[in-house]
């Protein structure tokens, strides 16, 4: 029995890695090879797909646009969520629990529900097809999440830390910036990570609210056929590159996420 204890985890990891492997392997193949035969490894190893993405503005601008609005969104969400989470964790006020719950319910609605009102609203005020449009639309989902995560981390910091700082002579703003934010840096990292990931993978709003200037990579990618037919190799390369930013961010916050789980949030 014990001899085969490695079997299940190995199978699990194998199944987990298979689609990713297939994607990466496809990205190094030519479209002909992909369509023509079943191969486990690229027989004609090519970097053309990647070369195309890094040289064609249609492709690399997609990444650029995505990264810009995702960054704006992450900064905005965390910046707004910090004071809100502090209020929820430190003060009792009328209806605080209801408000906290209501914030979370925003996440329960599918993005599609908001696509039409956002589209109409942003068109009316001239925000359509801008980075800010997508960034703002995503805050609707990310601020509640960030508030929720940060509140958990903040409540783990004893109130006496705040008091000690005031006693030492810190004003509220300098306490918040110099002491409190560094103290919950892990929480900020985790909150930023989740905002980043949501905004990075969200497709519907990003696609609806943009046309040309702020078009995200996901929108470019879903354009499966082009003038030269199906470009599966190219799409696979684009897909591979889409995984990279998430993987990098996960690497940096992996320890903090474990901590977040331990605190009962995330």
């Amino acid at each position, binding site marked *: 029995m014990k001899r085969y204890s490695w079997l299940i985890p190995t199978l699990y990891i194998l199944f987990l890695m298979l689609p990713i492997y297939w994607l990466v392997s496809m990205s190094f193949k030519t479209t002909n090879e992909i369509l023509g035969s079943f191969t486990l490894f690229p027989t004609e190893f090519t970097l053309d797909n990647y070369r195309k993405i890094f040289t064609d503005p249609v492709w690399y601008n997609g990444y650029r646009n995505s990264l810009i609005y995702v960054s704006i969104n992450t900064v905005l969400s965390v910046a707004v969520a910090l004071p809100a989470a502090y209020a929820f964790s430190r003060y009792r006020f009328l209806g605080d629990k209801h408000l906290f719950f209501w914030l979370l319910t925003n996440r329960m609605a599918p993005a599609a529900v908001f696509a039409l009102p956002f589209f109409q609203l942003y068109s009316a005020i001239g925000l359509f097809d801008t980075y800010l449009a997508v960034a703002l639309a995503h805050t609707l989902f990310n601020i509640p999440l960030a508030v929720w995560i940060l509140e958990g981390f903040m409540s783990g910091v*004893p109130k*006496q*830390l705040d*008091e*000690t700082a*005031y*006693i030492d002579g810190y*004003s509220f703003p300098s306490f918040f910036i110099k*002491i409190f934010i*560094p103290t919950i840096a892990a929480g900020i990292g985790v909150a930023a990570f989740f905002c980043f990931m949501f905004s990075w993978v969200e497709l519907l709003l990003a696609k609806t609210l943009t046309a040309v200037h702020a078009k995200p990579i996901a929108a470019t990618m879903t354009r499966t056929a082009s003038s030269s037919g199906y470009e599966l190799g190219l799409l696979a390369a684009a897909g591979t590159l889409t995984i990279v930013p998430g993987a990098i961010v996960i690497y940096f916050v992996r320890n903090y996420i474990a901590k977040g789980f331990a605190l009962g949030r995330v």
Partner: protein
Amino acid sequence: MSLELKQITKTVGADTHIYPTSLTLERGSFNTLLGTTLAGKTTLMQLMAGLEKPASGEIWFDGKNVTGTPVQQRNVSMVYQQFINYPNMSVFDNIASPLRVSRTDRSEIEKRVNEIAELLKIEQLLDRRPSELSGGQQQRTAMARALVKDSDLILLDEPLANLDFKLREELRDELPKLFAERNCVVVYATTEPSEALQFAGKTAALHEGRVSQFGPTGDIYRQPNDLTSARVFSEPPINVAHVSKTGAWFSLTEQTKWRAPKAMAKLADGPYTIGIRPHHVSPTMHVKGAVPIEGTVQVAELSGSESIIHFDAHGSSWVSLSHGVHPLRAGEPATLYADIARCLYFDADQQLIVA
């Protein structure tokens, strides 16, 4: 030159946490706030510091009304039961933080931090982060931060409660020396009467949001002015019994009688309450004239060289704290001897009858 609380109260919603309280704490004095958990010690300290505003009443410091002055401008220090340090700063920066905020010279900061670190024996830990320290060292850091500036008021909220026994003893011995040459008001909150007695100074007995007595520690211990203060100032809890006086005799039961001491002889006949501290009750005839109390042993526990015996005497419970090990088992009948000459007499309003 002192901290004066004038009829301050604190209410949170419909709950009263502090009933009208007036206290005058002198500079250069060591004041102990003694009370059980939830007695209001922390709330009273937060009011003194200015972290909370009183619902009514005024706080004066050195002849100035500071009731509305924010804590940042009050020049106070506080050490909490939890070891509170800034986790993102080194020990040095933690201690230096109050000086940095008040824009003290670099060289002066360096000098004072090193001085105070040496005094608290953490000079070799200055480069570390608080998370890399033991509990005792963390609390020493917190204390160093509280002592590094010349505060007018130093508040210590059960600073030793979370430490293990040995560290607590060690730090408790050092504490009075740390404050000896300071001309500030020191307030120390504790739940343990033995700590209050060890620090001497003055004690305020706090019970359910009221200061039942304030005065030199020894006086309160020997002559609590009412039953509440006596209860606050006794661990294990003081034994309370209802007695009646007939002529020259006090009686607990029909068999248990003793001659009223001279000072009490003139009291009117009737019901009275007596309080006897547990260490004046023993399973042996430890002093001449001790009054025997018959009953049943409920729990007999040993703490070090001392025995604590919980005892039931016809429906009223007694606690005895005595030296040595006694062969008593739970459920067995036994006799305890109360040193009646040491007992405190209270009248029907629970006020001490002064001899």
